[in-house]
C-alpha cells in the first residue's frame, strides 16, 4: 500500500484495534490460476508469534487452501470507516481556492504466509475465540457451547482453520493530515453535519489526527 509519511499508521495498538473493529478481512492469495480473494472474519491473537497471528476459517469445499501457493505470502486487508470529502467544507475554498476533493479512510494490511489448521482442538479454540470476540457486548453473548456438541462437531468437519502469522503489518490513516488546520476542522464539522454511513466515524478519525498530528 502506498504510504505517504503523513498517512502512515505505525501505532501497533491502533492497527490491532482497527482489525478488531473491522474483522471481515479481504484475504488475497496467489495461485497458479492467478489471484484468489475471499472475505473471511478474522480474530487477532496478539501473543502468537513475534507480530501476532490472524485466525479464521473457510469451508472445506473452498478450493483456496488446495490451490494457494503455500510458500507465497498472502495479504489481508481490513478497511475501516471511509467517506468522500468535499472541498465545500474547507474555509480555504473561499480564501484561496487551492483545494480539491479527496477520500478519507483507515486501512490495515497484513502480510504473511497462510497455513491450514486441521487439528480438532485447535479448530475449536479458534472458533471459540472468533465467537467471543464478536459476541462481547451483546446483552447475553452466544457461546459455542450453546449449540449441541454433535452439531458443532459435524460443522467442524466441514471447515478448515486458517492461521496467518503476521510477517508485516502496515496501516494508512488517510484523515486530512495534509490539509490546513482550519480545513481539517471544517471537514470534521461537515462530516458530522452530513451524518451519513460512516461520516461520524470518519469525523472522529480526522479529529484524532488533528490532536496527534496538528
Amino acid at each position, binding site marked *: 500500500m502506498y504510504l505517504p509519511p503523513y498517512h502512515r499508521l505505525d501505532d501497533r495498538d491502533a492497527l490491532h484495534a482497527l482489525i478488531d473493529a473491522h474483522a471481515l478481512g479481504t484475504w488475497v492469495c496467489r495461485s497458479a490460476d492467478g489471484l484468489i480473494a475471499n472475505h473471511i472474519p478474522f480474530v487477532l491473537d496478539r501473543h502468537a508469534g513475534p507480530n501476532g497471528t490472524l485466525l479464521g476459517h473457510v469451508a472445506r469445499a473452498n478450493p483456496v487452501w488446495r490451490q494457494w501457493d503455500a510458500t507465497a505470502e498472502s495479504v489481508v486487508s481490513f478497511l475501516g470507516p471511509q467517506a*468522500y470529502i468535499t472541498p465545500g467544507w474547507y474555509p480555504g475554498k473561499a480564501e484561496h*481556492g487551492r483545494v480539491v476533493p479527496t477520500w478519507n479512510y483507515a486501512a490495515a494490511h497484513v502480510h504473511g504466509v497462510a497455513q491450514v489448521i486441521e487439528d480438532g482442538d485447535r479448530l475449536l479454540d479458534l472458533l471459540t475465540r472468533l465467537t467471543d470476540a464478536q459476541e462481547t457486548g451483546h446483552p447475553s453473548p452466544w457461546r459455542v457451547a450453546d449449540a449441541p456438541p454433535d452439531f458443532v462437531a459435524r460443522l467442524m468437519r466441514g471447515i478448515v482453520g486458517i492461521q496467518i502469522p503476521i510477517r508485516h503489518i502496515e496501516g494508512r490513516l488517510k484523515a486530512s493530515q495534509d490539509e490546513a488546520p482550519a480545513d481539517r476542522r471544517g471537514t470534521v464539522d461537515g462530516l458530522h453535519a452530513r451524518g451519513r454511513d460512516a461520516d461520524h466515524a470518519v469525523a472522529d478519525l480526522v479529529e484524532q489526527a488533528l490532536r496527534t498530528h496538528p
Partner: protein
Amino acid sequence: MYRPTHFEENRPEVLHALMQAHPLAQLVTHGADGLDANPLPFELDARAGPHGTLRAHVARANPVWQQAGDTEVLVIFQAAQGYISPNWYPSKPEHHRHVPTWNYAVVHAHGVLRVRDDERFVRGLVGRLTREHERRAQQERPWRMGDSAPEFINGLLQVIVGLEIEITRLTGKFKLGQNREARDLEGAATGLDGLGQHDLALAMRNAAPRQGN
C-alpha cells in the same frame, strides 16, 4: 472466490450498481515485491467493454503504476457487512442448531491494468469523479474544478497518473442469509437494525427469497 450457488450473483446490472454505490475499492496487484493492495475510488464506465471499464488515479509517487502496468489485477468492491449472532434467530430456542456467521456483498473485477499517463485522461476522470461525488454529497453549491485556480489544478494533474482496467471477468457474492428460514432472516435483520446497521439489514430483506418460490 468460493461461491456456493445460493450466494452467487452474476447479473451485471446488480454488480455494477454495487460498484457504483461503493466506489472505494481495493486494487490488488502482484508485482516484484509480492502482493499489494491499494484502496482507490474508482469510476465505472458500464458501457465500455463487455463487462465495463474501471478508471482511477494514483499519486505519481505510488509505485503501483510502474510495478503492475500491463499485468492481471483484481479490484474488490464491498458493500455493507456485519456479524450475525445466532441469538437473533427466532428458531434458536427450538433446537439451538445455529452458529454465528458474517453477511456481506462483494464484487470482484478482474482485468489487465493499463497505465494512462495522459493529462487529458486524468483531467476528464477527476472532473467526472468530482461531479458525481459532489452530486451525491448533495452540497448546496457543488464544488467544481473551475472553482480552483487553473494553475493549481494543472500542477496537481502533473503529480497523478491514470489507470484503466477493462473488466474481463466480473463475479459477485451476496451472502445475505438467503439460505435461512424467512423468520430467521427477518430476526437477524431486526438485530442489525438494533445496532444501527440498516444498510445490511435492508440488503438482506431485499435478498430474501420471495414467498411461494
